[in-house]
Structure formats: structure tokens, C-alpha cells
């Protein structure tokens, strides 16, 4: 087998997941912050700030899941049953928050229940994604290429903490997005919230960075082998710097940079997790080469990806550009 095909695909899927986390992260995040205001106009403004984008954002989740099946069918077949409960939970939660985008407007003035669905659905979806993330880090029991663990293997203090961490991180992305895209009371409140959430996210990142090498010798070895450490030390330092920069920018009048630095923090954390686990896709046993699809399948889709992905990025950018600028309380996009 061509050794590089699974590597290319791992990078591609990693990119898709990362784009998903950042893009859907902020629109899940604004929903997580929904209950912090009772004002209907402010909620309209918050929802309007993501309304034209959320569907495209969520498509990256389909690409992440679908891509995993395309490129690493065996990993897909192990990971999905292993996280059966959190994944079903996430799907059900996404149903509520997804339809709330449309139902809420049509149901007015009786939309309180869809506000609740929007908030609860988004929060549970984010939490469930955190559970899956934590579960992936702690590893999956596999025998004969099949998931061989119990239905609640994923339920540990570590995964619960990851759930909370992801909710906090998404809320931060949402808050900084609101600072960037809105004005008036919504933006001011978001700026205050972002400071607290930033502390939360940085604390979470620190705990994961210490907990995972402590619990998993392979991760400790990856990071603390002297030759590796020499190469890798800038990563946590840079993350801390980004956190500090975001903090400073939130205290000033900057509107876009807090969001940008938050994205930077997410990228670096994701990179850190990738470094911890590469080349394992189903830790602790299966590498990306163990679970890869047939090379012909890899190549067939790669041909499409090579021109479709730039196109997708181009028209995604076009949509963001079309709906550029602030969403005001009175007019929204309208």
C-alpha cells in the first residue's frame, strides 16, 4: 500500500474536523449563550448573526463523518459503535437546534420552546462532542478489528471534563464572534462573557495537557522525549501567548482579533492532540495504515477533493463575504 495516501487523508480529515470545530463552534456557541439574555430582539440579533452560515458550517460535520468512512472505513466502524450513546445524543440534539433556526421565526410569538430547543440542543451537542473527543483520547477497546468494549466505556471523569471544556470553548468562540459581528448591548455583554470563558478554556487546555501525559505513557513519551521536547516546546508557549493576546484584545476595543486569537488557540490545541496521538487513529492500537480504505478508493475521491475542496472554500468565502458587516439590533440582514 502507498504509505502516503493514509497520511494525506488523515490531514484532510483533520482539516475538515478542525474547520467544523471552528465554524460550527461559533454558531453552537452563540446558542449556548442564548439564556444569558431574555430580550427577544437581542436573541434575534444573535441568531441572525449565524443564520446564513450555520447549515454550511454543519456540513463539515458530515464531511468529517463521511470522510472517515471514505478513508478509514474500519476506524469509522469501530469509533461509531464505541460512542453509540454520545453520538446518538449529539444527533438528536442537533435536530432540535437545527430546526429551531427556522421554526423559531415561523412560530413567533409562541417561540419560547424553540429558544429552549436551540439552547439545549446546542449545549448537549457540544457536550456530546466533548465526550467523543475525550473518549478518543483515552482509547477504545478493539478485538479482531471490531469494537469490543462496553456501552459506557466512554463515561469517565476525563470525558465529562472534556464535555464541559468543549461547551466552554464553543461558548468562547460564540462570544468572540458576537463581539466581531454585532454591536450594542449584545456585543458588550459578549465581550464580558468572553473574558470568563477564555479563562475557562485556558484552564481546560492546561488540565488536558497535564492529565493526558500523566494517564497515557505513550503521550508522555511523545512530548517529553528530549529530542521531541526540543521541537515541541513552542506549541504550548504559543498557545499561552495567544491566550494572553486574546485577553488583552478583549480589554481593548478590538472587534475581530479576539475571535481570531480564539481560533488560533483552537488550532494549536487541535495540533497538540494530533501530535499526542499520531499515527494512531483508534488509540491505543490501530494506526491510520491499519484502518485505511483501498488505495483505489483513496485516489478516486482524492481526485475530486483536489478541485472540489478549493471550490467549496471559495464559495464558502463568498457567502461570508456576502453577509459581511455588523448585524444590528433593528435591521439584522434585512
Amino acid at each position, binding site marked *: 500500500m502507498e504509505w502516503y495516501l493514509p497520511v494525506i487523508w488523515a490531514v484532510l480529515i483533520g482539516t475538515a474536523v478542525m474547520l467544523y470545530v471552528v465554524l460550527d463552534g461559533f454558531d453552537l456557541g452563540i446558542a449556548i449563550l442564548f439564556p444569558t439574555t431574555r430580550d427577544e430582539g437581542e436573541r434575534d440579533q444573535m441568531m441572525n448573526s449565524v443564520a446564513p452560515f450555520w447549515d454550511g458550517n454543519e456540513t463539515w460535520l458530515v464531511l468529517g463523518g463521511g470522510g472517515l*468512512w*471514505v478513508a478509514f472505513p474500519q476506524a469509522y466502524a469501530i469509533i461509531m459503535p464505541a460512542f453509540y450513546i454520545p453520538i446518538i445524543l449529539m444527533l438528536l440534539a*442537533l435536530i432540535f437546534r437545527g430546526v429551531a433556526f427556522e421554526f423559531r421565526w415561523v412560530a413567533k410569538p409562541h417561540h419560547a420552546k424553540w429558544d429552549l430547543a436551540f439552547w439545549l440542543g446546542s449545549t448537549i451537542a457540544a457536550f456530546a462532542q466533548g465526550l467523543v473527543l475525550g473518549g478518543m483520547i483515552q482509547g477504545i477497546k478493539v478485538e479482531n478489528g471490531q469494537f469490543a468494549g462496553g456501552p459506557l466505556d466512554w463515561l469517565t471523569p476525563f470525558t465529562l471534563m472534556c464535555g464541559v471544556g468543549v461547551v466552554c470553548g464553543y461558548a468562547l468562540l460564540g462570544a468572540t464572534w458576537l463581539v466581531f459581528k454585532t454591536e450594542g448591548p449584545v456585543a458588550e455583554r459578549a465581550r464580558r462573557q468572553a473574558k470568563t470563558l477564555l479563562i475557562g478554556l485556558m484552564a481546560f487546555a492546561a488540565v488536558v495537557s497535564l492529565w493526558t501525559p500523566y494517564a497515557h505513557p505513550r503521550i508522555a513519551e511523545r512530548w517529553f522525549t528530549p529530542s521531541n521536547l526540543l521541537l515541541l516546546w513552542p506549541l504550548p508557549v504559543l498557545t499561552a501567548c495567544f491566550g494572553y493576546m486574546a485577553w488583552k484584545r478583549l480589554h481593548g476595543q478590538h472587534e475581530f482579533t479576539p475571535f481570531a486569537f480564539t481560533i488560533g488557540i483552537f488550532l494549536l490545541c487541535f495540533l497538540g492532540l494530533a501530535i499526542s496521538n499520531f499515527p494512531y487513529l483508534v488509540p491505543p492500537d490501530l494506526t491510520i495504515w491499519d484502518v485505511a480504505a483501498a488505495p483505489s478508493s483513496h485516489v478516486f475521491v482524492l481526485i475530486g477533493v483536489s478541485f472540489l475542496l478549493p471550490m*467549496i472554500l471559495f464559495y464558502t468565502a463568498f457567502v461570508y463575504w456576502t453577509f459581511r458587516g455588523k448585524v444590528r439590533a433593528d435591521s439584522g440582514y434585512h
Partner: protein
Amino acid sequence: MTIDAFLLSRIQFAFTVSFHIVFPAFTIGLSAYVAVLLALWLKTGNPKFHQLARFWTKIFAVSFAMGVVSGIVLSYQFGTNWSRFSTAVGNVIGPLIGYEVLTAFFLEASFLGVMLFGWKRVPPWLHCLSAFIVAGGTALSGFWILSANSWMQFPAGHEVRDGIAYPVDWVQIVFNPTFPLRFAHMMTAAYLTTAFVVLATGARHLLAGKNPETAKTMVRMAILMIALTAPLQALIGDFHGKQTAIYQPAKLAAIEAHWDSSKPGALVLFAWPDEKAELNRFEVSIPGLASLLTHGSMDALFKSLKDFAPQDRPPVAIPFFAFRLMVGIGTLMIVFGWLGAWLWYRGRVFETRYWLRIAQYTWPAGFVALLAGWFVTEVGRQPWLATGVIRSADAVSPVTVMQVAISLALFVCVYSVVFTAGILLINRLIDKGPPEGEAKDPPEQPSKRTLKATQDEASVLFGDGHPGDDKIQPAI
């Protein structure tokens, strides 16, 4: 029959896919309809087209949201509940789904934003183009998913080693033998289904005396669509049936409840297929007609259910009854559509109240026929998940019965609440109808105006494209 993870997973998949399929079918048709309305508006400048486009876009948005969320469920369920299937055919079907996401999902999802919220943000031609792109995206999505589905019905272009399918020829895989007709059948079904919803809506508004101008347009456009696509669908269905005779003889035998291959197949109008006794009870049939329809001769012999070992036969009752339901509805559609066309030709369609009264209740017709057809083809594929490659019973994930029982219960609860609410909200939008009063002050032909003026005028007349801003529209 024991209650195990396999049975519950099957019920769960059937349940979630049945709910899902309704929405994409509707949105495939509706996005095309909205795109056509916008194009007609750009071309003629007649404000009624713009009014209708706004009206149907709101309904489209709600339906599309339901299609998206119920679709994400499916893309993950292959893994959560059918992991051995994912492994066995992932090399072949995975890429088809991958292409669906890359070519269709992103396209639809991204330009949907422009279509729903771009009324004032982009020039009319670009807005119209976005609607066409969304419509094209939904059709493209149908292309890939039906390619994958058809491959499962009759796999081609692959080889199986150690129980895992490997791709050999991608052209044969994508354009597998049963794909073109199945795709045509499904797309036509989507457009036909939507046409009946448009017809029912127009009829309802006419009977209620609500905005008769747009209502008449809806009825006319729907009649035209139905009169053309309903017979076309029958023709495609006939070809599809003949093809099933070649590629999936066991399914055909189940559809016809054909037990004895020593005699030509009779067209069974009604029967109670008894699978244990291997015969039909209470049979009413026309001798030789099934042979004629599927093989072109009254005397043709074809494989019967008894030619397959019991463990290789699909269940008989579901394909048998569902097929008759589908064909029955299809026939009524042709009759009703042509009757409407004839009334229209005589200039009486809007005065013939009995026809309109029936028409207003025809909206579920397409959906029922579509689901019935889906059950025919999917149940008829059993006991295989991918014919000859993996059986359904061997495909289920190593999950506990309790997990699936809980998830199934949750799906039933959530879908009942969410989709009932969605359908009620759509009903509310339909009831409200396109805003009246615009005709007094119609926007002029958009191409002759500056962009700004058109936008301002459109916003005054039609609100902002968002359901939430109905308050600035004229009161109804």
C-alpha cells in the same frame, strides 16, 4: 422473531430513513420550483412570480432544515448501527457518499444562505442563480445517494476478498446497471410529489378566496407539471420493473407474489400472500398479464419465489402491498392530472369546485406513493444489505440491544415532536398564503431598474425574506 440489536436497528433505520426521505424529495422539487419562479419573475417582471417565490422559499427553508437534520442522522447511523456493513462496503460506497458531500451538500448548504437571506444582499440575477444552484445541488445529492443505493441493489465493478468489497472499475460502480432508471424514477417522483403540494395549496387558496391571482398560477403550473410527469413516471416505472426482472428476480417475484415458475405470471390484483404455505390466499388475478408487463409476452415464464431458498427470499407481503399502493396512487395521479388539464383546456378549471375540493387534499399523494415505492425496493432487496456481498443480519454493529432500544425510543419521541411541529408550521405558512395587496403596486421588471430601487421596493412589498419579519408586511 427475537428482539435483538439487529431487529431494532432495522426498525430504527427504516424509521429514520422514512422520515428523512420525505423532506429531500420535497426540497428537490421545491427548490427547482422556486428557481423557476424566480427566473419567470426576472423574465416577465410579473410580481406574482416574485410573491410566489417568497412564499415557497419560506416553506422550503423549514423543509430543508428538517431534511438536513434528519440526514445527518443517517450519515452517522451507517457507523453506529451497521458498522460491519461500513467495513464490508466502505471501499465502494464510502467514496460515493464522499462525493455527495463534496459536490452537493456544501453547494446546497452554502447557497441556501444566499437564497434565504440574500434578497437584498445580492443582485436579482445572482439570487436567482443561487436558487438554481441549490436546486442543482439537491438533484446532485440525489444522483450520488441513488448511485450508492443502486449499487447495494445490484453491485457492479467490484470484487470481494475476505468478505470486503474492493473497487475495480469506478465507472461501473457509479453507473451500475440499475442506477439510471432508479435515479430517473426518484427524481420524477420528487417533482411529481412537489407538484401535488403546489396544486393542493393553490386549490386551497382558491376555495378560501385567498389571493386568487397567485393561487391560479400555482394550479396552472401544477397541472402542467402533473399532466406531463405523472404519465412519464408510469413509463419510467414500467422500464424499471422490466429491469428488476433481469437484475433482481427475487424482488420481482415478491412484488408479483409469483410462487410457481412453471406457469406464466398472473397480474395479482389482490391476494393475501401466505409465506409459510407458499401460496396466495383470496387471489384475484389476470392470468399472464404479469408476464406480459415484465417480459413482453403472455406466455413468458420467469423465476418465482420457490426458485429461491427460503433464506434467500425477501419478505413478500410488504413489497406486494406497497407496490400496489404505489401503482394505485400513480394511476389516480394520471387520471386526476389529465382531468385537470382537460378542465383547464375547456377554461373551467377554476369554476369546477368539486375538482378543486379534491385537489386541496391531494398533497399527501406523492409522499405516500414515494414511501410505498421506497419500501418496495428496500424490503425487496432483503435478505441482502448489498446483494451478494453482505446480508443484513451480518451487518449489524456490536452494540447491545439496550442501547438500540433506548436510541430507537428517543428517535421515535424526538421525530414525533419535531416533525409534527414542522408539518404544523408548514401548514401555518401555507394557510397564511403569499401576502396580498402587492398587485396594486407591482415592482417593475427588475432588469430595467437599478439594483437599489428594486431591492428597496421588494423589501417594502415582500418583507425581508425572513419569516420573522412578517410584521412589516401589509396586514392580511
